[in-house]
């Protein structure tokens, strides 16, 4: 249950923060939070429920953009399915693999949705420019994910240290008082 709540929270947070995210100097690329969250959701929620949460995320992104709804949903579900195949037998992936997956998910999601949108809108796209932009977005997202992972690691380490000393104190207190 907690995992589902965490997934829902991460999705909502990503959706409300994405519009306000900063653009970096490189090709105006900016982190694509849904690309990061779809990987997190795939890790947090196993089975079909994870795919369902990814669909919710895609639908939310559809609500934020002007493109016809459905494009982002299809892209998100496709990415989630691919991630599920990649992580079929593995548990929680190491940090490097996680970052690689974030970059991969962002690139696939953005590329597929933009190409689909261009096709629907009858626009000619320069694939070179598009791939450069998407690659920059993927790198930016992976970098942000790396920073967040580092913060999360440090926080959990600090938490473990604190809880460890608290346990020792409690044990000493029990020994002294017999309670």
């Amino acid at each position, binding site marked *: 249950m907690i995992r589902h709540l965490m997934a829902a929270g991460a999705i*909502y*947070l990503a*959706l*409300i*923060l*994405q*519009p*306000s*995210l*900063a*653009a970096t100097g490189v090709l105006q690329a*900016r982190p694509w939070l849904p690309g990061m969250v779809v990987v997190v959701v795939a890790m947090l929620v196993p*089975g*079909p429920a*994870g*795919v*369902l949460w*990814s*669909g919710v995320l*895609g*639908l*939310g992104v*559809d*609500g*934020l*953009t*002007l*493109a*016809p*709804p*459905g*494009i982002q*949903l*299809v892209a998100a*579900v*496709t990415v*989630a*399915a691919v991630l*599920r*195949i990649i992580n*079929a037998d593995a548990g929680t992936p190491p940090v490097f693999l996680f970052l690689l997956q974030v970059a991969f998910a962002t690139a696939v999601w953005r590329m597929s949705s*933009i190409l689909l*949108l*261009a096709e*629907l*809108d*009858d*626009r*000619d*796209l*320069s694939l070179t*420019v*598009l791939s450069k*932009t998407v690659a920059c977005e993927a790198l930016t997202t992976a970098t942000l994910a790396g920073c967040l992972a580092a913060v999360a690691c440090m926080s959990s380490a600090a938490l473990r240290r604190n809880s460890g000393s608290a346990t020792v104190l409690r044990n000493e207190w029990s020994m002294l008082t017999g309670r």
Partner: protein
Amino acid sequence: MSSRSLLTTCCLALLGAALLLSPPKLAQSVRGAIADFLRPGLESVRLVRENVPDRFHTIAGEEPEAQSASEPASAALDAEKELNRALQIRLAQLEEKLGIDEQTPSGLSSSTRLVTPSLVEVAVLGDTMTEHWRSGKLIDHGSKNGVHENELVLSPKSGASRLLDVGQQFELSPEDTLLLGRCIIGKVEHVGRWTSTFHLVTDAHYRGRAQLIRKTGTDRYVFEATGILKGQGERLCKLEGVGAEHSVRVHDAVYTADRDGLLPVPLYYGEVVEATLNSDDREWTILVAPVQLPSHLTRVQLLRTSFNPDRLAVKE
């Protein structure tokens, strides 16, 4: 991947495809429901942004709608620029061949007239973007704060008109000319706050002064009769007002007839493809084929007029 996960994936992909093919009303209501659900969070973020303006504004990016729409547009920009450059080179060669430059002593920049023309490159909004802009989805909370687009631009009457992504901030005015290279393709109809509508030369409402130019002998061109070029809502336009006393031939070039003398060179409309004069007619019936537009019109040039700042400056 388990069979249940696969089934869920397929169901969701089908749902996405169904949404994609759904009628616009359903799509709008879905988007509205999602936006309503996200609104509290988005409002909270907006409040934080407003309370921490200085720090946030330096790192804040565009709105997601604009980003999503601008990415395909920016990717298409390179290809359009390339095409534009090729057209301009070709047109410059033609212009040189025609020798029209020799008749014009000064360029645009060196003009000392009170009102001077200037070119600005603008984007034409795609069909989807235009529809969303007109339905008010692009500005979802602006109207509450008095921020709204000109009614004339959004009105259903102008629903057939396409939109440019520039408005009053670019000092546009109705009747400003729309160019593709050096060829006229239309003019501005209504100017809104951020967007403007325009007529193509072939649209039924289009009217513009035009003159015929004919090649005589070896590389010599003469100005012929002037008239009013009218769009007919079809592929061909009609040139009216050319009296029976003039001589008109098929393949005569049709250029602008600028009464204000603002432009150093006439701009090209197209060529005469049919010219008939019956025995009891007082005017020619002339059909003009305007320049062929690319299949996807995304970038055009806009010829606007503005006051010459040198002339407006007060001498001390």
